[in-house]
């Protein structure tokens, strides 16, 4: 008479393979990555306080040593999970509708379907490719030594690298363009993550959606004013 109890799956399998667990993880990693890009963006803005301030900020991060490695490993794990799940969800949806519609139109109204929501996989994959190119250009890019030193230790002149790279229109506009895609990814992403975590209700949803889109936009603007400013003004002396 009573509900058949299936063999209870171990926690990790429920998390990684159930349709709810996958969303929890995409949402959690997505929000984690969002926090990371906010901190990264704020750090970048120290450039506007001068080359020295910027180099000092980068130096401080680097001198965290093992702490930094742990943070970087965590970040890498977030990216890997987020990407694997995002791609898995995309491939799954293609299988779930093998034959598509001849005509398809959103009903509008309560729907949150938008260019943003439909292109998560595209903006996501571009962000992933960009991430690799970005690390190669900067983190693993040319090493210049700054004239100043901190506590007698040599300091990397990252500001000079920035000033050089963003003279190029390809870099300046390429970076800015990708940041617009980040804004698109986050316009649907931030609200979606809250919904994935069950942290929404009909009264909160419009607020979360609007704030999410705004945060996405602010992050993008915070990022791309730097390359554009360097490109158009020549950057800090």
């Amino acid at each position, binding site marked *: 008479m009573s509900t058949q109890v299936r063999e209870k799956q171990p926690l990790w399998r429920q998390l990684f393979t159930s349709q709810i667990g996958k969303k929890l993880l995409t949402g959690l990693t997505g929000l984690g990555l969002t926090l990371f890009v906010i901190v990264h963006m704020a750090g970048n803005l120290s450039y506007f306080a001068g080359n020295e301030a910027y180099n000092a900020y980068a130096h401080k991060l680097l001198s965290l040593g093992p702490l930094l490695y742990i943070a970087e490993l965590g970040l890498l794990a977030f990216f890997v999970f987020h990407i694997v799940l995002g791609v898995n969800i995309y491939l799954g949806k293609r299988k779930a509708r093998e034959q598509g519609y*001849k005509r398809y139109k959103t009903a509008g109204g309560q729907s949150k379907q938008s260019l943003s929501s439909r292109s998560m996989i595209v903006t996501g994959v571009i962000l992933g490719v960009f991430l690799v190119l970005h690390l190669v250009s900067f983190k693993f890019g040319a090493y210049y030594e700054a004239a100043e030193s901190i506590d007698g230790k040599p300091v990397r002149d990252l500001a000079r690298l920035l000033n050089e790279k963003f003279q190029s229109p390809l870099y300046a506009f390429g970076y800015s363009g990708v940041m617009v895609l980040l804004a698109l990814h986050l316009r649907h992403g931030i609200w979606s993550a809250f919904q994935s975590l069950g942290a929404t209700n009909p009264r909160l949803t419009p607020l979360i959606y609007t704030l999410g889109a705004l945060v996405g936009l602010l992050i993008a603007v915070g990022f791309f004013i730097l390359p554009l400013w360097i490109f158009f003004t020549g950057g800090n002396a």
Partner: protein
Amino acid sequence: MTIYLNVWRQEGPDKPGRFETYTVPDVSPDMSFLEMFDVLNEQLTLEGKEPVEFDHDCREGICGSCNMVINGQAHGPNARTATCQLHMRSFKDGDTLFVEPWRASAFPVIKDLVVDRDAFDRIMEAGGYVSVNTGNAPDANSIPIDKVAADSAMDYAACIGCGACVAACPNASASLFVGAKLAHLSLLPQGQPERNRRVVNMVHQMKEEGFGDCSNHAECEAVCPKGISIAGIAAMRRDYVKAMLAAD
């Protein structure tokens, strides 16, 4: 009014399908969409052709069988309206309409516009009920239920299982259906004893059936003829986390 139709015709589950073009003259604006199809089918029968197979039963918006995607929208252009409740006055004389079946791997086409929605029944069998011994009805008011919870449970119970949520979802996810079925029981005292098992089993079954994952497009809520809220999906996720962490 005259309506030009492009209707999906498919002889059987494993047969290839195609659009056939039909012209229906003298359509009255007061006809329902299904009555317009009745007229078309009479026309086809008189011409000695095979009528278009489509599902319907109550024709009053409560059974959930009249499933058609009309010009790319499940149940057509009007909000909170099942195809049987859609009237031709919502269209213009001379309109060209594409009519397709629900498209989802979990809802295979049986014939023309009729799809097999047994997947929903199997999800229900996995837990969409409460196990109670029948007997005398309990005294009214012997189990107090908060009015807000009762109303909310009723809103979720309005789900007619038509599958428009799946049809309209870009991912062909069944999350709104499953969320509604879960929420309507978990808001009520009778739903509590099996609450954890229910959410785990039903969520599992929806995956087994081959529905896609939810990407929170919220298209389901927009096409639902009963206007069921995606708050039910959020509630399903909260319940799943609780069940995941529960000891039993």
